[in-house]
C-alpha cells in the first residue's frame, strides 16, 4: 500500500530574502554610520567647486599661518585657517578629498579587475593555469609594496596617475585569492558538471553562479584595498614620492606642514584626521557588508 | 540511607529574545549510591539542561532555582562557583554526546587525563600517570602506556568515548552523569560502551545518571527511570515496573512507537504521537501533554496531581488510563 503524503502541519512562512537583507542593513549601526560618512565625503568631493570658499591653489603670503576658527586669532574668512603659503585650508581639505577618493576608487577598480580575472582563470581552468596564477600570487606577496612603489615612482617621476597605476598593478592579490576560492567552490557543484555533460555553456554558468556568490566577499576586499590604497598614497606623498605639489593631497599637506607642526599643530591634525575619518568610514562599510551578508544560519 | 543525590523542585529558566523559556519546570528525583537512573525524553524536553544544572555548567543566560539540592549530604544549591568547580570532575563527573569534539586537539590524551587528577588530588605527575594507565586499562584501552602519548585525532570515536569515561573516573567520583553517551556512535560500538558503563558501575560502585532518548538503552542499563516531557518529569519508576505497565499516556505512546523485541507482536502497526511539543516560552499551565493526549479533558488545563503506586509515580489527572487508546 502506498503511503499518502501528508501535508506539513506547519507552514513556515518567513520574510523574503530581499526584505531580510534590507532589515539587516538598516539595523547595522556600523554600516549606516560608515555609509553616511562616506556619502558626506563623496558629496564634498563632487561639489568641491561649489562648496570650497577659496581656490585651493591661491597663495596669499599676507594671510600666512592663520589658525582655524576656534583659536584666538581665527577668522570666518578662513574657517580652517591657512597654510604656510596662505592657501585656505578648508578648500584644500575639500579638494584633497577628491584625490583620496579618486585614488581609492581607481586602484580598487584596476586591482580588482586584474585580481578577479586571474582568480577566475585559476579557479575555472585549474591544473597548470592554477599553478601559474598561484605562483604569481606568491611572487607578488613576496614583494614589499611600499618599497616597490617608492622605487618605481622615483624612477618614473611622481604624479597622481603614476601612483594609481603602480598601486593598481600591485594590489590585486587578495582579489585573486578570493575569486579563485569562490570559483573553485562553484566549479565543483554537481549541477555544473551535469550541465557541462549536456553541452551547456559552462563558462556562462560558472560566471553566472560565481559572481552573485562572491560579490559580498569581493566588496569587502575592495573596501580593504581601497582604504589601504588611500593610506599608501598618503604615505608616498608624505615622503615626497607620490602626488606632487601643489596638489592638495592630504598626505602631501602633512608633509608640507611638518616643519611647522610644533607651533601650528592644526596644519597636520586636520588632514590627518580627514584621512583617518575617510579610512574609518570605508572600513565600517566593508565590515558592515561582511556582517550583513553572512549566511542566514548565524541569524 | 540518604540518597547520594537529592533533587527537589529544580527549575531552569533561559532568557531568550522572545521571552523566558522554562526549560526545566519543578522536577524532583533522587539517585541512590551505586544505582543507575535513566532520564528519558525526546530532544528539547530539558534532560540535558537538568544535567548541566546539576553540574553548574549552565550558560550565562540561564537561572537555576531549587527547593532542595543535595549531593553527598552537602547542599548543592547555594555553593560558590569555586566550591562547585572543586566538586566537578572530582566527586561528580560528566561525559558528553560528541566524543569527536570533546577532547582538546592540541594536547595528548595523557595530558588531559593527568591534569584533572593533579588538579583535584594535588598528586605528582608520576602518581597521576599511573592512575591514568590504570583507568585506561579498566575501560579496555591497551596498550595504555602508548595511548597516553597520542593525540585525540589519532583515536576512533568509540575509543575517544572510552577515554572520556576514563577521564571522568580519574578522581573516583561517586556520580557519573552521561549525556547521550552512545548516540553519536556506531551501533556496535554503542553496545560495547553501554556494556562498559554497566561493568564500571558494578566494579566501582559509581552511581550513573544516564540521559537518553532511546528506550532501548534504558532497557539495557537502567535500574530506575524518569520520563521527561516538556521540562517536567511525567513518570518515574523502576525499569521493570515501567516496561511492564507504563502509566502516563506519553510513556505509553513512546513504547508503542518502537518495536521491542519479544514484546511487540509481529505484524502490528507501530504507533505515533500526533502533534508537536508545546512552546515553553511564557506561562505554561496545566498538563503540557494535553494537546496530544487522547484522553485529555477540561481539568487537564489546571494543576495536574502526582500519583503514586508503590515506587511507581506519574503525573496525570486521570487515575487510570484505559489500556486501549482511541484510534
Amino acid at each position, binding site marked *: 500500500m502506498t503511503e499518502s503524503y501528508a501535508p506539513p502541519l506547519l507552514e513556515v512562512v518567513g520574510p523574503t530574502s530581499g526584505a531580510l537583507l534590507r532589515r539587516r542593513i538598516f539595523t547595522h549601526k556600523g554600516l549606516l554610520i560608515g555609509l553616511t560618512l562616506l556619502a558626506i565625503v563623496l558629496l564634498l568631493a563632487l561639489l568641491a567647486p561649489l562648496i570650497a570658499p577659496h581656490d585651493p591653489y591661491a597663495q596669499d603670503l599676507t594671510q600666512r599661518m592663520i589658525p582655524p576658527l576656534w583659536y584666538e586669532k581665527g577668522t570666518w574668512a578662513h574657517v580652517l585657517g591657512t597654510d604656510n603659503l596662505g592657501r585656505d585650508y578648508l578648500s584644500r581639505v575639500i579638494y584633497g578629498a577628491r584625490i583620496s577618493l579618486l585614488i581609492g576608487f581607481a586602484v580598487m577598480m584596476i586591482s580588482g579587475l586584474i585580481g578577479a580575472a586571474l582568480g577566475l582563470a585559476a579557479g575555472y581552468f585549474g591544473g597548470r593555469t592554477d599553478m601559474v596564477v598561484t*605562483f604569481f600570487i*606568491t*611572487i607578488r*606577496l*613576496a*614583494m*614589499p*609594496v*611600499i*618599497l*616597490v612603489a*617608492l*622605487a*618605481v615612482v*622615483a*624612477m618614473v617621476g611622481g604624479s597622481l596617475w603614476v601612483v594609481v597605476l603602480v598601486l593598481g598593478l600591485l594590489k590585486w592579490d587578495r582579489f585573486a585569492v578570493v575569486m579563485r576560492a569562490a570559483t573553485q567552490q562553484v566549479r565543483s557543484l554537481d549541477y555544473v558538471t551535469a550541465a557541462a555533460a549536456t553541452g551547456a555553456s559552462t563558462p556562462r554558468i560558472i560566471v553566472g553562479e560565481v559572481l552573485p556568490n562572491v560579490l559580498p566577499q569581493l566588496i569587502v576586499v575592495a573596501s580593504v584595498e581601497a*582604504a589601504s590604497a588611500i*593610506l599608501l598614497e*598618503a*604615505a608616498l606623498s*608624505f*615622503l*615626497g*614620492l607620490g602626488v606632487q605639489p601643489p596638489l592638495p593631497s592630504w*598626505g602631501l599637506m*602633512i608633509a608640507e606642514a*611638518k616643519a611647522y*607642526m*610644533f607651533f601650528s599643530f592644526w596644519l*597636520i591634525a586636520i588632514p*590627518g584626521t580627514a*584621512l*583617518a*575619518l575617510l*579610512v*574609518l568610514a570605508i*572600513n565600517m562599510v566593508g565590515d558592515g557588508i561582511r556582517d550583513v551578508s553572512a549566511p542566514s544560519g548565524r541569524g | 540511607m540518604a540518597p547520594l543525590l537529592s533533587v527537589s523542585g529544580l527549575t531552569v529558566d533561559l532568557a531568550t529574545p522572545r521571552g523566558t523559556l522554562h526549560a526545566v519546570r519543578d522536577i524532583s528525583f533522587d539517585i541512590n549510591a551505586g544505582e543507575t537512573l535513566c532520564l528519558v525524553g525526546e530532544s528539547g524536553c530539558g534532560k540535558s539542561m537538568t544535567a548541566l544544572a546539576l*553540574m553548574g*555548567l549552565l550558560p550565562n543566560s540561564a537561572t537555576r532555582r531549587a527547593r532542595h539540592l543535595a549531593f553527598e549530604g552537602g547542599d548543592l544549591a547555594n555553593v560558590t562557583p569555586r566550591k562547585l*568547580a572543586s566538586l*566537578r*570532575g*572530582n566527586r561528580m563527573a*560528566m561525559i*558528553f554526546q560528541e566524543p569527536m*569534539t*570533546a*577532547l*582538546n*586537539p*592540541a*594536547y595528548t590524551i595523557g595530558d588531559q587525563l593527568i*591534569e*584533572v587528577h593533579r*588538579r*583535584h588530588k594535588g598528586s605528582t605527575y608520576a602518581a597521576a600517570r599511573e592512575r591514568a594507565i590504570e583507568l585506561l586499562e579498566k575501560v579496555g584501552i591497551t596498550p595504555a602506556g602508548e595511548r597516553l602519548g597520542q*593525540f585525540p*585525532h589519532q583515536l576512533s570515536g568509540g575509543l575517544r568515548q572510552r577515554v*572520556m569515561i576514563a*577521564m571522568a573516573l580519574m578522581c573516583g567520583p561517586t556520580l557519573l552523569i552521561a549525556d547521550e553517551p552512545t548516540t553519536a556512535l556506531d551501533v556496535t560500538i554503542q553496545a560495547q560502551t553501554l556494556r562498559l558503563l554497566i561493568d564500571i558501575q558494578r566494579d566501582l560502585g559509581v552511581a550513573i545518571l544516564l540521559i537518553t532518548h532511546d528506550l532501548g538503552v534504558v532497557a539495557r542499563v537502567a535500574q530506575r527511570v524518569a520520563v521527561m516531557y516538556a521540562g517536567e518529569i511525567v513518570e518515574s519508576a523502576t525499569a521493570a515496573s515501567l516496561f511492564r505497565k507504563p502509566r502516563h499516556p506519553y510513556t505509553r505512546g513512546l513504547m508503542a512507537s518502537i518495536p521491542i523485541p519479544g514484546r511487540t507482536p509481529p505484524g502490528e502497526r507501530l504507533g505515533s504521537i500526533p502533534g508537536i511539543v508545546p512552546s515553553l516560552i511564557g506561562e505554561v499551565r496545566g498538563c503540557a501533554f494535553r494537546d496530544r493526549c487522547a484522553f485529555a479533558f477540561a481539568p487537564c488545563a489546571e494543576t495536574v496531581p502526582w500519583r503514586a503506586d508503590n515506587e511507581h509515580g506519574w503525573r496525570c489527572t486521570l487515575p487510570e488510563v484505559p489500556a486501549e487508546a482511541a484510534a
Partner: protein
Amino acid sequence: MLAFATKRFGLALLVAVTVSALAFLLLRASGDVAIALAGEGARAEDIENIRRIYGLDRPLLVQYFDWLWKMAHGDFGQSLYFKTEVWPLVMEKLPTTMLLAVFSLTFALAVSIPLGILAAVYPNSWIDRLCLALAVVGQAMPNFFFALILIMVLAVSLHWLPVSGSESWAHFVMPTITLGYYIAPVFMRLVRAGMIEVLASDYVRTARAKGLSQTSIILKHALRNALVPIVALSAVQLGLLLGGSVVIETIFALDGAGFLAYQSITHKDLPVTQALLTLLSILYVGLILIADIANAWLDPRIRVG
C-alpha cells in the same frame, strides 16, 4: 613533517629567484637608468659614459646574470651615493631595522593578546567595546600621522623621549609604539574571534566539566588553540613591518635599512635599492615559509601521517 618542509623550501627558493629577477627588471624597466643616474641637464656624452661604465649597454639578460653571479658571491657593487660597498652598508643598517621589527611585533602581541582575551571572555562589555574602538582607530589612522602625534606629545610637550636619531634605546620607543600600533588591530581581532570560537567549543566544555580553574581553561586549553593562526600571521606581519619601517625610520631618522632604502631611492642609488629590494623579498619569502611550517607544527592535525 620533513617532506612537507622540504617541499615548501624548494618552492620558496624558486620564488626568491623569480623575485630577484623581477626586482632587477623592474628597476631597469621603469626608466632609462643611465638618464636617471646622470641627473637633470646631463649632456648626451655623459649619459653614454655612464652607460658604458655601468655596463648598461649590454643585453638585459647578460646584465641580470652578471648581477646574479656577483650577488651569489656577496658582491652587490658600489653605492653611488654613499661611495662604499653595498653589502657592508646594508649589513650595517639591517640590525637596526630587525631590532625595530622584533620590538614592534613584541609590543603589538603584548598589547593585543591580553586585550583580545579580555574582549572574548567578557563579550559586549565595556572592555570589549574599548578594544574594538582601539582596533578600529588603529586601522584607520595613517601610521606617519600617529608618529607625528607621538613626537608632539612625548618628545616636544613632555620631553620624555628624544625626537629622532638612533643612538640609544630611548630612540626606539616611539618608532616601536608607532609600528606596533600599526599591526596590533589585526592581531587583536584575530585573538578575540579565535577565543570566542574556542571558548564555545566542546572541549572547553569538557574542561569546565572537569572542574579546572578558570585560568587553566582560558590560558591552557583555550588560548593554545586560538593562537594557532597568530603564529602564521606574525610571520606575515613581520614582513609588513619590514616594509612599513621605511616611512617610520625616515620620520624618526632611525638609521636602519628602511631609512637607507628611502635615501637610496631618492638619490637614485640603483645598486643599493636593488640590493635592498632583493634582500627584503628573500626575507619575506623566508618568513612565509616559517609561517607555513609553524602552522603545521602547532596544529597536530595538519602534519598528516
